[in-house]
């Protein structure tokens, strides 16, 4: 371990940064510093001001007041070019790689090495990439096209790309938000390796366990101001303290679900096969029950629920609802038979980003809930208003385009459109991914509410605390089939991971 020298000058220091948007302070005087080789974690709820602060650093935003010191030199504001020149680089949350180009090409896109005639020196770039890959201990062929890489490898490429310009300050924005436990661990390890090379890292994440593991210091911001900065030398910073700081009041990290009486079998799946050679899947879900689908990313959890609701075709098997055999060929059939499918990836699958909240919420309900052939959108709000208020969706109005809402509120809109039509079987696929704690709590409350009404829930999730606290039973999916079932006390993080990874069942 390299010791961080806090007596030296910090490599980066932001002094009393203020930034306002039309009169509202997004940042109200933030002071934040970073030392050479340090991992400084920045946490806060969505909308707390993390992204705004980082945009000030990247030069996208000009602060209203305050100063930015980089290696002792003070600046009033940075521009994107200046920020780069000073060695500040960002690994963004979104994927900005070119899918049809290979690893090397992606790393050097916009920054190609050329000879004196202006031709690209591919071999040199390849060798340099190879060296980086080895140095960081990653397994990857630099000539693979991005579209053929796994999500975690793509994340590595993004990091490699950021490193290729030899930054002094590296900002990582939720680098593990799309990952399972295993891949996240790889990214964490890589982050440490990079910091040991003397690069200062600002690490933004919602996963407090991660932060506890890797942070040298943790700064919590709320409503555009720093709440606290903690040392984390012994990797033992109490998570409860951080969450309290984040939301401004104590929260239970584990949601306390009210126990519901479990009724008769509502959904019965028998010998469901997605493809000819895939495993047969059979399970039941009862009224008032929440069944968790655990498993690694890519284990086939999403595929199973997509086949159930008609989003994908299936090869064989039987689905019974309330004992009656149903045929589901497309999502329309699925909806008719009572399925609600809160899909993963709200932006790509769940929303019309450039349409209003109102239009988004009523899109499915148009079919049966709203009567008649001719309609008038102006008359919809009364249908939707109560729902939006109940879910506490923060939106300027029902006519606001969904794209302007925060992640948590967007996700609530997705839920609202399915609550609007009152289905029987609710399927949640990664319902709380990338949303803040308060929005999560709202989701758990709604799920409890649904089971109370005798509806049933299938919840695909990679969030362990959520799986453990919400599920009555957990089915562990591996290689496209059900590998095991856990219930009651047996639902523990350890059991789930063991099963999901395929560790021998009775090795003890």
């Amino acid at each position: 371990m390299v010791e961080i020298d806090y007596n030296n000058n910090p490599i980066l220091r932001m002094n009393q940064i203020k930034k306002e948007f039309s009169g509202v302070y997004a940042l109200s005087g933030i002071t934040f510093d970073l030392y050479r080789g340090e991992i400084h974690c920045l946490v806060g709820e969505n909308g707390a001001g993390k992204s705004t602060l980082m945009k000030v650093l990247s030069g996208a935003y000009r602060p209203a007041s305050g100063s930015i010191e980089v290696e002792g030199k003070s600046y009033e504001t940075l521009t994107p070019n200046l920020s780069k020149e000073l060695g500040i680089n960002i690994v963004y949350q979104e994927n900005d790689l070119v899918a049809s180009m290979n690893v090397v090409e992606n790393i050097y896109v916009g920054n190609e090495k050329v000879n004196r005639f202006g031709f690209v020196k591919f071999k040199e770039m390849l060798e340099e990439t190879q060296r980086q890959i080895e140095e960081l201990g990653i397994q990857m062929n630099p000539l693979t096209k991005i579209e053929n890489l796994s999500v975690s490898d793509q994340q590595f490429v993004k990091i490699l790309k950021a490193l290729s310009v030899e930054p002094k300050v590296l900002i990582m924005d939720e680098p593990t938000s799309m990952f399972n436990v295993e891949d996240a661990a790889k990214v964490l390890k890589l982050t440490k390796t990079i910091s040991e090379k003397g690069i200062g890292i600002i690490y933004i994440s919602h996963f407090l366990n991660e932060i506890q593991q890797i942070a040298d210091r943790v700064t919590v911001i709320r409503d555009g101001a720093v709440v606290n900065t903690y040392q984390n030398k012994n990797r033992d910073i109490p998570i409860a303290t951080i969450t309290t700081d984040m939301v401004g009041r104590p929260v239970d990290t584990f949601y306390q679900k009210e126990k519901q009486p479990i009724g008769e079998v509502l959904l019965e799946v028998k010998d469901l096969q997605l493809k000819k050679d895939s495993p047969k899947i059979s399970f039941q879900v009862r009224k008032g029950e929440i069944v968790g689908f655990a498993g690694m990313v890519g284990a086939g959890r999403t595929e199973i629920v997509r086949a159930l609701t008609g989003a994908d075709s299936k090869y064989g098997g039987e689905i019974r609802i309330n004992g009656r055999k149903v045929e589901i060929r497309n999502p329309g059939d699925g909806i008719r038979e009572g399925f609600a499918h809160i899909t993963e990836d709200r932006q790509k699958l769940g929303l019309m980003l450039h349409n209003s909240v109102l239009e988004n919420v009523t899109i499915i309900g148009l079919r049966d809930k709203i009567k008649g052939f001719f309609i008038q959108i102006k008359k919809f709000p009364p249908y939707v208003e109560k729902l939006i208020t109940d879910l506490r969706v923060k939106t300027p109005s029902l006519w606001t385009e969904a794209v302007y809402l925060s992640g948590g509120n967007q996700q609530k809109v997705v839920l609202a459109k399915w609550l609007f039509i009152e289905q029987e079987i609710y399927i949640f696929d990664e319902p709380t991914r990338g949303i803040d704690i308060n929005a999560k709590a709202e989701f758990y409350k709604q799920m409890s509410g649904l089971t109370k009404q005798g509806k049933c829930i299938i919840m695909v999730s990679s969030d362990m605390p959520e799986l453990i606290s919400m599920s009555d039973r957990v089915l562990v999916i591996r290689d496209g089939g059900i590998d095991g079932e856990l219930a009651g006390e047996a639902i523990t993080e350890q059991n789930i991971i063991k099963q999901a990874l395929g560790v021998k069942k009775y090795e003890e």
Partner: protein
Amino acid sequence: MKNKLTFLKDQRILLSFVIVAIVAIVAMINPRFIAVKNLITIFQQISVIGILTMAMSMLLISGGIDLSIGNIMVLSGVVMAQIISTSGNVALAVLAGMITAILCGVLNGVVIAKSKCIPLIITLGTSQMFYGLALTISGGRIMSFGGAFNAIGKTKLFNVFPVMLFVLMAMVLVSYVIMNRTKFGRRIVALGGNEKNAFLSGIPVVKYKVIIYGIAGFFCSVAAIIFSARIDSITANAGTGYETNALTAAIIGGVTFDGGKGTISGAFLGCILMGVISNAMNILQVETYIQTIITGAIIVCAVVLSNLNNMKKNK
């Protein structure tokens, strides 16, 4: 409601302002421009392109596009003319022409929805097919309608308003009602907004695409009648350029290539703007070649202007 109002400000109010400004300026130079007769002429001039713009706008909002609408119109017209000249049965001719156009639209829709290819390329191809068909049927000759549509082309209500004006208005109204007041239309908007989301929301995507392309085909056949009524004849290459003009009018009116966005009223305003500009230049006796340059420049300006907000947004 706030956001809806700002949206209005962005697109349609801006357009109306530009139109009024141009009308005012031209009227000052030549008062003849705002004579009722000339204003009616403007609408008469945009009647064909207006109907095609409605078709194009609906497709663009649905996330599609159809570059064959010009040739669908021509093919439909040629079929009508052929039947009139051989049998003299106008009703039959109109029916056959409409069915032909609807079938052309449905063909586009089926291929696009099933193959999931880019509609732009598919309709470029089908456009050639329809053009070829029209050439084959007409033998490349000018096809006469023998005055069959004179009632539409020449009749004027109260001796002032030509019938075709009402046809145009009716088609605009029909498309407005389809897109804004029917479940089908709202779902078409949803389809254009996010096709995957629409599919998962239980919307039968393939069926809806076929229907909307079919409707566009129907609009083309109505445009064919108006077109033929004005000059009592049609040729196979008469449709050239209509698809791009319709596209331009729609885009100027705030309809986007990305789908899910845009309004019928906006597209219609876009159409009026183009009509006003071209008529104004005639009145001001601008040379034809120069007219083309100016039209192009105005289109670029209008599109850039209507995109100013987006440019700001990305900053």
